[in-house]
């Protein structure tokens, strides 16, 4: 089958897979399937989705090198923006619903709880990346675009640290993400050193 044929399906398919969980969450919420503490459940699930999508988007460049094909790169912006989308939901739910816009409480969390600071850093870094994600922006910024978007590594690291620090008792999932992140970083590092 010629390469272009299945690639036409690729983006819509991946888009649906990335949006699906959001729809599932909304439906779960509307049908009361989120349990007795839906704020907590939603915060948790949007956070998990954000970090998984962020790690997946970080895996696309290495995937391109391994497959010697560019199709993973076509998905990178979309998945990165989805990661930002879920991160936005996650932060909004925390600020708006959990803390009910209580600035004092939020400030206390930021200053006394390092894991919240780490999460905030991850989110703040994603904002300029999301804003400059368009092709127009890439054209305008030129070389600076690439330097700016290297900050995504910081976002990834901060997000994983956020999750590792917040995990209570059960550390398996956050540690898996940490290992994945380290693998993705070392792959890039090895490649840079070889050149």
């Amino acid at each position, binding site marked *: 089958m010629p390469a272009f044929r299945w690639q036409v399906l690729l983006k819509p398919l991946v888009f649906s897979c990335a949006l699906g969980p959001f*729809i*599932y969450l909304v439906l779960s919420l509307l049908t009361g399937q989120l349990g*007795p*503490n839906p704020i907590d*459940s939603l915060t948790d699930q949007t956070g998990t989705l954000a970090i998984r999508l962020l790690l997946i988007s970080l895996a696309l460049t290495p995937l391109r090198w391994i497959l010697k094909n560019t199709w993973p790169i076509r998905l990178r912006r979309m998945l990165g923006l989805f990661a930002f989308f879920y991160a936005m939901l996650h932060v909004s739910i925390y600020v708006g619903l959990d803390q009910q816009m209580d600035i004092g409480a939020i400030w206390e969390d930021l200053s006394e709880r390092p894991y919240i600071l780490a999460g905030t850093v991850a989110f703040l870094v994603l904002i300029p990346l999301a804003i400059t994600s368009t092709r127009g922006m890439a054209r305008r910024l030129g070389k600076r675009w690439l330097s700016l978007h290297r900050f995504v590594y910081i976002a990834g690291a901060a997000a994983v640290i956020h999750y590792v620090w917040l995990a209570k008792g059960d550390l398996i999932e956050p540690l898996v993400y940490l290992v994945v992140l380290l693998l993705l970083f070392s792959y890039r590092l090895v490649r840079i050193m070889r050149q």
Partner: protein
Amino acid sequence: MRDWMKMAGIRSSDITDQRVFNRRRQLLQASVAAGVTGLIATPSLAQSADNGVALEGPIVKSPFSTDDELSSKETITTYNNFYELGTDKGDPAKYADRLKTEPWSVTVDGECANPGVYTLEDILKPEAIEERIYRMRCVEAWSMVIPWNGFSLGNLIKRMEPNSKAKYVAFETVVQDDLPGVQRNVLEWPYREGLRMDEAMHPLAMLSIGLYGEQLLGQNGAPLRLVVPWKYGYKSIKSVVRISFVEEQPETSWNLSAPKEYGFYSNVNPDRSHPRWSQSKERRLSGDTGGLAALFSSKTDTQFMNGYGEEVASLYAGMDLQEFH
């Protein structure tokens, strides 16, 4: 997606009508697309409690009960921390049937005149079962109001006749190797807790065998558990198999896992901050909080000693509560 399909039968009283429930189930089934599940950390969708086993005999109302609004039975039985059964809030309800609660016996040992292995029947025979509606405050800053059924821990302690060397009471939870959390060593098993003797003898401290007039379900610590309402919920140890009278302050599981976060006393204290959660407020899960409205629920101010300060403050007179937390 997998587990609520196994939900059995008609549920009791205020919980969803079967037709509505089935319609919701169909809706969710229709909406889940193939590629989606890999991304979602699939929640342990809440399994509600079927009609439980009613407790036999009269149940006496207790003056210790609060008139705060009760949490629904669904809330109490589907949102649990019982890590031996899994670490998601819905896991204990999901895996409760793996907990073997019959036959049950409690080993009493240590500094007392009547050590031995007591069956549940031995323990319950002389006791009048009361209904005590207590607030339960989790260290994670959420709380419930639970109508426990049980009796004062002090009654059992008196029967065991601890001697003057017994300064503390230590408790252990059952360890069953086939439970999902036990295999994973999330905490050091067996789950251990302890109280100072005067705390254990306080009339508010109770042993519970049921709630809402029904026997405890696995997820709530069947068949016998401790409830210490002025402390964070993790002190209220579940599925007790051992009670020891000891001279030295006993080890407690959460303290072993994170000594900087969890102290021995664990009294509810809005003025003592926790590394993970501010303790000044809490989210009260009372009534039925499964709906959309729960998204907009405010947090309430946490009360000193979970609102039992008047009753228990004397236990801690002169103690620095920041240091002894």
